């Protein structure tokens, strides 16, 4: 069998889901027997490659960089997994949505608190522009599978991946998986 090409990406989230991934401990060695991690915050690849089999997407889509990379990820990946609550519901990342547009949010964060030199961050080409609304991944592109949790626990991730690799698709243990 060909080795599985696995990727993970980190958008607007706290990286807790990736930490939980690392919590799988020795099973990561097992995983390395049949999968190559071709793109991830854990490895040093700069460009999202072609022909990725499975990609775990952590975090919501909050800025133009997220949006651009997500579109590339979708185009180059067979199976996309919304990984954790931020990717699925927006979660904490989307708590800014009730405040209004990106402009309202930036004003609330940088001008309203009355710092010494109040200014909005603007560095075109360096600091990506915020989207007006933080979006769950499935509202932007097609998502094949969802793994909720904040974060999903290491055993849940492991079981999900084992089922996925075995071709069962969804974990099938929905009762044990919940938001939060």
């Amino acid at each position, binding site marked *: 069998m060909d080795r599985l090409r696995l990727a993970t990406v980190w958008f607007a989230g706290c990286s807790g889901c990736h930490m939980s991934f690392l919590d799988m401990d020795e099973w990561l060695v097992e995983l390395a027997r049949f999968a190559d991690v071709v793109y991830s915050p854990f490895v040093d690849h700069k460009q999202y490659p072609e022909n990725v089999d499975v990609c775990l997407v952590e975090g919501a889509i909050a800025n133009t960089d997220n949006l651009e990379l997500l579109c590339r990820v979708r185009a180059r990946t067979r199976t996309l997994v*919304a990984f954790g*609550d931020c990717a*699925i*519901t*927006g*979660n*904490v990342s*989307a*708590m800014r*949505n*009730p*405040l*209004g547009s990106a402009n309202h949010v930036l004003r609330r964060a940088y001008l309203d608190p009355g710092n010494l030199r109040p200014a909005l961050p603007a560095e075109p080409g360096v600091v990506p522009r915020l989207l007006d*609304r933080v979006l*769950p991944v*499935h*509202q932007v592109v097609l*998502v094949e599978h*969802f*793994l*909720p949790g*904040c974060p999903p626990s290491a055993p849940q991730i492991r079981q999900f991946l084992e089922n996925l690799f075995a071709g069962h698709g*969804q974990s099938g243990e*929905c*009762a*044990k*998986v*919940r*938001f*939060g």
Partner: protein
Amino acid sequence: MAAKTLTIDGQLVSAEEGQTVLDAARDAGIHIPTLCHLNGIQDIGACRLCLVEITGSPKLLPACVTKVQEGMEVQTSSDRLRRYRRMILELLLAERNHVCSVCVSNGHCELQTLAAEHGIDHVRFEYLSPRLEVDLSHRLFGMDHNRCILCTRCVRACWHVEGAGTKNVAGRGIQSRIISDLNQPWGQSETCTACGKCVAACPTGALFNRGATVAEMQRDRTRLEYIVTAREKSQWIV
């Protein structure tokens, strides 16, 4: 009292006259999901989660306010019902800001548990993300409108169990809000007895004890039923 015999999910069930389909099903060990129902307070059939199919009726009926009848044939979990229940739960999750991970009721929330039971791993509807208030004016309790699903359990506990009549619903449709007295800060209410029955009744993290942080709100659901049974039947059943 006369006994009625009916079938629920193909199972023959004997129930007392005047019992609801929900009670009859629960007595027979058949689970029907509910949100606005709470033992001890009056049922109003608001949340529509307990809708069941009854042979001969073109409409779906809420099990919590439908009385048993002789020969009734009830279906509690057809594909259609499961589909509708899923949709109801997803709409509830999309309507306000239910951020489970930072909610006082994380892990003890009836909405969260029901969503998991119904296999909801994402919400197909767009989140409305309304801007809502948190009322922390009361010395003991808080009200977070972001988490409220308008089940009105708090209103019914306040009116029918405590008899204070502090809590009420204002507005219509998506503008509906739970209010205190004449829509004033809870802490300024002159009728609130600070009994906490509304907090005990709340299925989500909308009502909470002040000072409770993430996942700390655990409620004793049997407390209200105990009070009502004690008052109406003079039975102190723990």
